[in-house]
């Protein structure tokens, strides 16, 4: 009779990944990188607002026709939306479970407490929650128009964006969220490289650079509206 070994009890690869802390980190890293790739494209696309209403609105139209004639109208866009939704859910669920575990693993604090960890590292959890709330507000504002301040018009992002950034709170919410995003990416991208085993090849500078470029690119739009460069 063969002896029962630990190997016989080993779960399948997906189960193994979801059960272990390292696997959950991998889920966070992969979903984070998917969102990050999207954000780079999104940021570049937003900059079209500096080239006038025609170019911006045409771009919004293209988002719906991309993939044609293979894909039907808006199929490509919905595909992106589904992937992103899955990424956000996986990312937030793993973050919640890992954070609970981390807090439980260190129940008593040191009497002689010292501030450890960098600002970006310490704010991953709150920063992530801010980003999650921002994503909801952002969709209700500029995708569905539910909370949009003026008459929201489908497929006319140029005017919709100007209207949003003509309110003080629109600017405030957006800029705070983009700064939070910068911090989240600065630690997150670097952490993801380590989680996936490429830590040595991704220097911290690259992560900082990426965070700065993304934040600056996104924040350029409300500043453009506020200063009247875009009107």
């Amino acid at each position, binding site marked *: 009779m063969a002896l029962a070994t630990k190997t016989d009890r080993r779960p399948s*690869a997906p189960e193994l990944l979801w059960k272990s802390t390292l696997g959950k980190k991998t889920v966070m890293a992969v979903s984070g990188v998917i969102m990050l790739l999207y954000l780079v494209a999104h940021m570049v696309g937003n900059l079209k607002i500096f080239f006038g209403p025609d170019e911006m609105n045409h771009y919004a139209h293209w988002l719906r026709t991309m993939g044609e004639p293979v894909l039907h109208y808006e199929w490509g866009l919905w595909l992106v939306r589904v992937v992103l939704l899955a990424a956000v859910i996986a990312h937030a669920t793993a973050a919640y479970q890992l954070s609970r575990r981390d807090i439980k*693993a260190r129940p008593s604090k040191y009497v002689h407490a010292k501030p450890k960890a960098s600002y970006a590292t310490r704010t991953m959890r709150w920063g992530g929650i801010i980003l999650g709330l921002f994503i909801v507000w952002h969709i209700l504002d500029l995708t569905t128009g539910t909370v949009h301040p003026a008459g929201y018009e489908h497929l006319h992002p140029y005017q919709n964006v100007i209207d949003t950034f003509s309110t003080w709170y629109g600017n405030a919410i957006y800029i705070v969220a983009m700064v939070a995003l910068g911090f989240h990416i600065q630690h997150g991208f670097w952490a993801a490289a380590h*989680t996936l085993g490429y830590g*040595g090849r991704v220097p911290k500078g690259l992560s900082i650079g990426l965070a700065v470029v993304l934040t600056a690119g996104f924040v350029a739009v409300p500043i453009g509206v506020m200063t009247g460069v875009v009107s």
Partner: protein
Amino acid sequence: MRLTLRVWRQRSADADGGMSTYEIDGISQDMSFLEMLDTLNEELILKGEDPVAFDHDCREGICGACSLVINGDAHGPERTTTCQLHMRSFKDGDTIDIEPWRAAAFPVIKDLVVDRSAFDRIIQAGGYITAPTGAAPEAHATPVPKPDADFAFEHAECIGCGACVAACPNGAAMLFTSAKVNHLNVLPQGAPERESRVLDMVAQMDDEGFGGCTLTGECATACPKGIPLFSITKMNKEFLRAARRGA
């Protein structure tokens, strides 16, 4: 030197603990930190009080038994073990806070002594090679490339003290586990169990209630043996490789 010590006192695992303050005089700069505590304990015994319990064994910085958080730093202000820390790192008149390692997986047994058997169980899960023992084998029978040998040695330096866990805000044992996994996984002797080792040791680490890594880096700063943070990255890579292969 004259010092004020604030020491964590806890009668037993279940008892409530708290910081007690002691004044101590006549400490030489050349004493080790543990000799300073020995002096305190002699005074306490003469006064008929319970001496402070703390872990120690070799006092040479090689066994990993000593374990104190001194002024919020695991093993104190120098990058070395508590037993190799000397009082010249402190000034006359200083107040020094002394606490046990803090982690759910390292419960306090008494005063400054914690139960680190969780580390033993991680080792039992795969921190070995399965080979018949006997006389030492011929050294040249199994060639090991120099970079691999250096890498293995660097990680074999881990003495299992647990300072990495104590320093980590998540009470994670990633640095320790990665040191052990990397040490054996890079060597030809460790190759047959390369996948099962990392999977089993990580599973055991999770089962013991250690937290996860958030790349804070406090572990590598605290480690008296200089195990680098990159060690964790390397273990992540080994883990993903093993998960893909479904060992």
